[in-house]
């Protein structure tokens, strides 16, 4: 797969995001798949931030550590990011008279880098334009380096300023100036992109948070309550931006407890409502998770992960929240934990999460992370016909409502533990959603007989839920296959990797690499993390020469759950816990190391050794 990467670096607030976003959109419209990745510290102005675009004419959803083009909006970029350039790379900077230190001069020579000084201040002065327009100048120059059509950029920028004529004219002049700039030393510079694929032009450029927001609206969410905390805040912001279109109730709550309670009250009343938070914010919501278990109130919580403990690394990524989601909160109860992995399932899984919550009258925790929440994906427009709205055993028919008894609500003998549910305001017998242990109608009942019966009712749901959850998705050498079709047939698997969340996309890019395209590598992706299905994994493990766990946490939390559920101990782990996502080239080399050592093992040990022993 051909890949080109372009990285814009500078201080937060300098406009790296606006340059990145415009180039990304322009390239997508020209027929490229773009994957955008942001790094930034937790502050508003200053610091050192970056926006990287990885571009291909095939589907791409990962970031490389090495780049073809570095755009440095200040000299810190020249100090900090030079090592990241590939052979023949381009450095574009705006710092007048910059003298590279000796080791960088050596690097420039070794890697045949081309350095371009773009005299942004001179051009601004000439045009009597304010400093803010330097971003337009730079964007236009980068656009010309990419051999893209100037008019396409003009129409893109023009959309923003359609109603401000004076501003529009100045922007257009800046585009012309920037586009036509030629560096006197380097001459005309061109970055070769592969031939475009027009299909991408109609795609969306979307963050995981936006995808999740659209998925929520699609799923019928009518009330959103949240408290700002990165990386869940972009979802709150996006839902709020849409409120005049969706006519939803949006509430910025006074804390996470409030947000969770508002949402729970709204779900009890019978709408679909959502909240999202991160790390310690979810700690505050966990008492409400326990409450909803007892009153059998369907609820959905989004847990957007970032590295902890405590406030940790607010603007960086991690997958450290799996055990938190699966185990937090008082008492034993049935819950479901699922994880999104891309802009596709961030959308698709929201109706699924609400359906599961209502079918089983449980809480569903949807895991995402900073990488998914803020990465920019090139996304095929969503299929708006495939999702169902399944409200489970909700009674709404007036005749059926009339026939209800109060004791139907928490009937301990209900099939699968899922009793009938009906909504306040329905003309029917009433009940109490009771947080104390209660009988079938919600009256407090602490008798041993009732306690046992109700406990068993609530926990019985676990079995139905587990049996109904889809199997983990199996990907083989970049080709997506139905797990069931493939699981018992075919040859030995050279390497079986297991992962979840944002790891999945990067791993798929790695499997599509030229280096690994024909290898017998399988990747098993867990979307449904609790309850955890392990039968497919155990069968695949039997046929795999080597198994590796790939996670962005220190302990290998999915591995811990797997071991707890089926005894399979995956000793080989590719773990990352430095706040950064898996990068394409980094993960590729980790996987290749394992493939190489698998081959060695084969030569040295004639009898094939299983990596794990299923119990």
């Amino acid at each position, binding site marked *: 797969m051909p890949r080109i990467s372009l990285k814009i670096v500078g201080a937060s607030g300098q406009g790296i995001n606006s340059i990145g976003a415009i180039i990304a959109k322009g390239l997508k419209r020209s027929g490229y798949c773009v994957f955008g990745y942001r790094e930034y510290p937790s502050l508003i102005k200053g610091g050192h931030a970056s926006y990287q675009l990885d571009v291909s004419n095939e589907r791409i959803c990962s970031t490389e550590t090495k780049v073809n083009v570095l755009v440095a909006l200040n000299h810190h970029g020249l100090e900090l990011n030079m090592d990241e350039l590939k052979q023949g790379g381009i450095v574009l900077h705006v710092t007048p008279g910059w003298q590279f230190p000796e080791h960088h001069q050596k690097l420039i020579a070794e890697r045949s880098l081309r350095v371009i000084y773009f005299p942004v201040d001179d051009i601004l002065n000439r045009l009597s334009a304010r400093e803010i327009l330097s971003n337009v100048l730079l964007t236009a120059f980068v656009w010309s380096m990419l051999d893209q059509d100037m008019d396409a950029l003009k129409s893109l920028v023009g959309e923003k300023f359609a109603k401000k004529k004076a501003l529009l004219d100045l922007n257009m002049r800046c585009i012309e100036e920037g586009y036509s700039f030629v560096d006197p030393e380097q001459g005309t510079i061109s970055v070769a992109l592969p031939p475009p694929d027009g299909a991408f032009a109609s*795609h*969306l*450029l*979307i963050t995981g948070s*936006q995808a999740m927001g*659209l998925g929520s*609206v*699609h799923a*019928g969410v*009518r*009330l959103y*309550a949240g408290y700002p905390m990165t990386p869940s805040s972009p979802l709150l912001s996006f839902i709020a931006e*849409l*409120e*005049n*279109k*969706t*006519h*939803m*109730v*949006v509430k910025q709550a*006074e*804390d996470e*407890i*409030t947000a969770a*309670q*508002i*949402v*729970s*009250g*709204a*779900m*009890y*009343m*019978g*709408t679909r*409502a959502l909240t999202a938070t991160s790390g310690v914010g979810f700690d505050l919501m966990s008492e*409400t998770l326990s*409450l909803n278990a007892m*009153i059998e109130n369907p609820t959905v919580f989004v847990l957007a992960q970032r590295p902890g403990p405590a406030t940790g690394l607010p603007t960086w990524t991690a997958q450290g929240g799996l055990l938190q989601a699966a185990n937090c909160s008082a008492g034993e109860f049935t819950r479901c934990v699922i994880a999104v992995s891309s802009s596709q399932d961030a959308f698709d899984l929201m*109706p699924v999460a609400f359906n599961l919550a209502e079918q089983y009258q449980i809480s569903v925790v949807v895991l995402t992370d900073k990488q998914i929440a803020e990465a920019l994906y090139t996304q095929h*427009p*969503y299929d*708006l016909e495939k999702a169902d*709205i399944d*409200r489970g055993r909700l009674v709404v028919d007036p005749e059926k409502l009339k026939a209800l008894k109060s004791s139907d609500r928490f009937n301990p003998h209900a099939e699968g533990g899922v009793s009938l549910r009906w*909504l*306040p*305001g329905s003309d029917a017998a*009433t*009940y*109490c*959603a*009771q*947080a104390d242990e*209660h009988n079938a*109608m*919600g*009256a*407090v009942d602490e008798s041993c007989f009732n306690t046992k019966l109700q406990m068993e009712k609530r926990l019985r749901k676990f079995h139905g839920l587990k049996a109904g959850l889809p199997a983990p998705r199996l990907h083989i050498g970049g080709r997506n296959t139905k797990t069931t079709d493939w699981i018992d047939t075919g040859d030995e698997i050279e390497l079986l990797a297991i992962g979840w969340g944002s790891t999945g996309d990067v791993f798929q890019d790695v499997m599509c690499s030229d280096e690994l395209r024909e290898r017998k590598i399988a990747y098993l992706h867990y979307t449904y993390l609790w309850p955890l299905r392990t039968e497919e994994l155990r069968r695949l493990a039997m046929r795999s020469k080597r198994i590796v766990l790939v996670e962005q946490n220190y302990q290998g939390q999915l591995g811990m759950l797997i071991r707890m559920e089926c005894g399979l101990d995956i000793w080989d782990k590719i773990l990352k816990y430095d706040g950064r996502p898996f990068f394409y080239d980094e993960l590729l080399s980790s996987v290749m190391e394992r493939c190489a050592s698998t081959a060695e093992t084969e030569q040295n040990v004639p009898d094939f050794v299983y990596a794990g022993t299923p119990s």
Partner: protein
Amino acid sequence: MNIALQTEYYTETKCIWCDGCGNYGIWTAVKYALVELNLHPWQVCLCYDVGCHGNGSDKIEGYRFHGLHGRVIPFAAGAKLANMKVPVIAFGGDGATFSEGIGHLIHGVRSNYPITFVLHNNTNYGLTTGQASSLTPQGQPMNTSPNGIPEHTLASMDLIFSLNPSFVARGFSGDIKLMTRILKAAIQHRGFAFVEMLQACPTYNHFATHEYLLDRYFDANADGHDPCDLQQARALATNVHDRIACGILYQREDIPHFHDRLVPRQGIETTCVEEVRRYDVSECWKELV
């Protein structure tokens, strides 16, 4: 009184409050108010916090919720915002409301959610066996504070009035007629109705007893108090040393409630509950292409 309707609120669950507990009176007045407003149990949502009052959650009919300590206001607000057609009444004790849930109370009043909040004020944590609440008088020996509590007593009505409330009332558990009048007005009030019910706790509160309250309370409205008068209302509410003013102390009907202030909900006749369906979101992604 609609006797037929009254019987709809009867339950088989027996009351388990102490003899002489103020909860009996408040419980009775709540039922009277609902019946006099001609509301059937299926038409109302009653949300209970944790405490002795919360043990009443299964002693009345209606769609009820009994939740976690201090959290009843946001739960009730969420329920109401989801279905504006159902009257929502939340109940909480002085322990939960002015300690664990004080943030929720402050933002509940500030947000002017269209709900009624009934404060069961027995001036202590009854259900956890008589600890001091933040409304217990300073120096009063209580369970866990044998030498009296060192903290200041929280000036609850000063706090409420500092938040620009739209409805403040006070009742006394010994006067069911007065409580019924207050509760009816509160339920019909446009925004957040804060109703304090002074009540005896015969087991743990030996300072503000039923007799103590009976001797001091009076119906300020009967004395000619105009609920529009903010200054007088605040003075009546906070000055409780000799006599305790009850009745509807303050009311503003011209202040829009939270839902009224939501721009996206203007002109929408349906409720969030009725609006649950699959939505076509292609309009929302146009700018992303």
